[in-house]
């Protein structure tokens, strides 16, 4: 004999626990959830730990703008990997088609970082340091990440060039999207197939390379003609799905 009760503890349902959405509480709760990840990452570098400490200091005395900044750099990029929908992944994969040069190398590094579980850390580092990053910082950071030092240094070199070309945001977003793919060997192989297909297509044409392609974006004619092709691509992708 029981009185009718409809309210059920949230933890016994499929609901995501609600997190505060604003200010310090929001950050603290996110840190609580993702704290373990940072702790793991921190093992690789004192610098990162310092960065975290700085972040925590900022939080403790944060105004809205600072909170936003820390949110951007320390938390959201990690979460963005999960949040980005698969809408971007087709476009991303398409973009791989054009990069037999530097981009493919970058991709390899990203795949390896991801496989080693370091992509998130990379995102954190790059994101955190997006603003004040200079070459010394990059090298110093790269030197402190143990076995990944060499590759990360390469990546950071690329990063620097991109930053100089004003395209760092694009790469960060790309990398975040890539992490959402949860790349594994199968994915990497599939992408290599795509690259191979493009390679054939490219035999007779002048490879543009990553930076050439980025440069091409500035050409309004190129942009105008391309919307059509991309729409066809998306449509074809949808039909085949």
């Amino acid at each position: 004999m029981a009185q009718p009760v409809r309210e059920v503890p949230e933890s016994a349902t499929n609901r995501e626990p609600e997190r505060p959405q604003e200010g310090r509480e929001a950050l603290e709760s996110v840190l609580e959830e993702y704290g373990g990840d940072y702790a793991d990452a921190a093992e690789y570098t004192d610098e990162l730990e310092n960065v975290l400490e700085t972040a925590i200091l900022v939080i403790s005395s944060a105004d809205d703008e600072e909170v936003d900044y820390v949110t951007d750099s320390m938390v959201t990029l990690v979460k963005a990997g999960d949040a980005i929908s698969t809408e971007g992944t087709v476009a991303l994969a398409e973009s791989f088609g054009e990069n037999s040069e530097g981009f493919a190398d970058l991709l390899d590094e990203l795949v390896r970082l991801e496989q080693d579980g370091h992509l998130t850390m990379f995102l954190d580092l790059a994101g955190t340091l997006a603003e004040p990053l200079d070459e010394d910082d990059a090298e110093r950071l790269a030197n402190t990440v143990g076995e990944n030092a060499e590759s990360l240094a390469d990546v950071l070199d690329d990063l620097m060039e991109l930053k100089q070309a004003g395209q760092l945001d694009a790469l960060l977003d790309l990398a975040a999207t890539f992490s959402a793919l949860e790349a594994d060997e199968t994915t990497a192989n599939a992408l290599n197939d795509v690259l191979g297909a493009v390679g054939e297509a490219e035999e007779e044409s002048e490879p543009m390379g990553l930076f050439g392609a980025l440069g091409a974006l500035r050409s309004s004619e190129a942009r105008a003609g391309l919307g059509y092709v991309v729409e066809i691509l998306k449509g074809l992708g949808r039909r085949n799905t």
Partner: protein
Amino acid sequence: MSSNNERKEGVAGFMQRAKEQANRNVEHFAEGMAAGSMPEGKLFDIAQQISDKRLGELTVDSTTCGYCAVGCRFDVYTDGEEVLATRATDPEESPVNDISTCVKGKFSYSFANSEERLTDPLVRDENGEWREATWDEALSRVVEGFQDIIDEYGNEAMSVIASSKATNEENYLMGKFARQVLGTNTVDNCNRLCHSSTVAGLAKTYGYGAASISVKDFEEADLIFLTGSNTTEAHPVLGTRVKQHVKEGGELIVFDPRETQIAEYADQYTSIRPGYDTVWVNGVTRYIIENDLYDEEFVEERTDGFEEVKEAVSEFTLDYVEEVTGAPPEDIVSAAEAIAEADRTVFGWTLGITEHSHGTDNVASLANLAAITGNVGKPGTGVSPFRGQNNVQGGGGDMGPLPDNFPGYQKVADDEVRAKFEEAWDCEIPAERGYYTTEMFNAFDDGDLEGMFCIGENPSLSEPGKKHADEVLADMEFLVVQDLFMNETAKYADVVLPAVSFLEKEGTFANTDRRVQKVNQVLEKKGNAKADWEILQALANRMGREWDYADTNEINEEMRSLTPIYGGISHERVEEEGGIQWPCWDEDHPGTERLYTEEFNTENGKANLTPVGYAEPMSPQTEEFPLTLTTGRVLYQYHTGTMTHPEEGIMKYNDRDFVEINPDTAASYGIEDGDPVRIESDKGEIVVTAQVTERIGEEAVFAPIHFAETAVNTLTDSERLDPEAKTPEFKATAVRISPVEGKQSTSRPGSVEPARGDD
């Protein structure tokens, strides 16, 4: 992209912007790359490879639909956590639906990932509030509760409601659990509320309580004779088959109180008063016999009881039929002549025939009509009750979670059969049948039942007489509910056990034409929820039994060894051959496409025609309650809404109950389309929105069954039951209507569209 969505604040807002920015950048980046140098042909190649890769990341598995009992098969595309898309399986493997799926089967899967899904067991804390519990604690409480009831009141004080949503294998175990573990025959399921009168009426006339035909007989028929079936809404894919039949030149006759969409396709639609079906059916039969239009050879060779039927129908003259049912004499004549002239007629019906206090008689009268016109057992002929729940034929009937039947319709009362199950299950089984579902709720009142184990069923809303059902549920000594959700019934429970949907488990369903088809797991189980069979096994073992099923295949093997009509229906064969229709006696038997081709399943092999006389609703119209309420489904919703209400798109089409009223009737009460209307019966009242439409006759009103807020079973009665099958009289309740003054809300919060029952 969510650019059109409401802008969010704070961290969520940042995430939203970051996501949009990322997508924009990635797309621009891709554009730049592609624009540089790629020939268009290569772009297509690459797109193809990308889509292959993306598909490669998805799981594609075929399964059988978990909504209605048509038995559609489709491929489910998932990432393991979410249904991303469904597409009808290769036509060779989807014999029933071919290339079709309906709106629910195609789109309505949000329920599986609904935030309201229960992921952990719930028990009551010291204040009576729900508290999350481990399985160990919850199962201990269940066992203790069941044992207390048994110790104090005896085994016969326990009851089980089995779930026709669950697989055959699980339903076999529900029946076994009731008899072997709890020691009672009181186990029943939702068939009692729908087609139990079909089962009773057909079983006594022909031998099997099931459709005699296959879906393809709809194609081979010259005439489809439909009554009490809103086919396009309740069984949309069968509706498509019927429409196809018409399009290809076949004939269609519809008798119904509502001019449903399928009636618009009919050569003849006849409006009838709800609740007097034996009268007009007997009228048609009488006309056929009187005018020698019946199949003398078939009657002579394959039936018994013709003379008694002839005698019984003699009073149903054309004038009398018109007086009682409103059906014009010319309609009875033309229907009778059409049946007589057609070489092959299929008779189809749904709950408009069965959910009456004389549903079994209604079905028997149709069975008589089909038999005397020779329309049984030949291609393109036969009877087809369209079953409601996905597995009510298999789980609800064939598997025998029934008070009077073991699996395969073997009778509990038969000593030999009972001895077989007693030996197999190592237990004693009472010879007396248990209570039917509708009787259970009255037996609690009388103190004959004290405890209930309710699996995948929502009697608070689905039983006749909601007020009564709620009182019984609240007063139960011990109630365990096993479900996906905290539904209207679960809120009364002592313990709630979280179960999983058909998308999260493996087994078989049997559809409306006796076809056993495979159900495959396409999603991960939600949280700590378990399949019904796993929960039952855990409980049985805690109550001293030694169940040791590793999977549903092992359950199927045991079930088949005890169930002759399923003897050859192994998982392996179903997987390899597609659906197999019972009876299928052994591994070499091909299954049975059409019943009664040679003989009926009766003692002498002949159809037992049963004389049927006049019958009227137990709640006839009176001066006080001058209209007759009939209830049913709408296309976009399903039963008590646990599966469809989480679906946003579906709720935009239909988010509340309503009442259909004929324009003349509405005018006489001063009611306009969209007005709130109070419907009252002698049991209670509800307020719903008026839908003024000519599809319903002047003396009837229709309301759907889908929303707790306006539960239509507030108006129906728990004691008006068919005498044999105990089916409630959902389809005929005397009511009055009145406009509601002022602004009384009849809608759900956040509703956006006017309610419509059809597209």
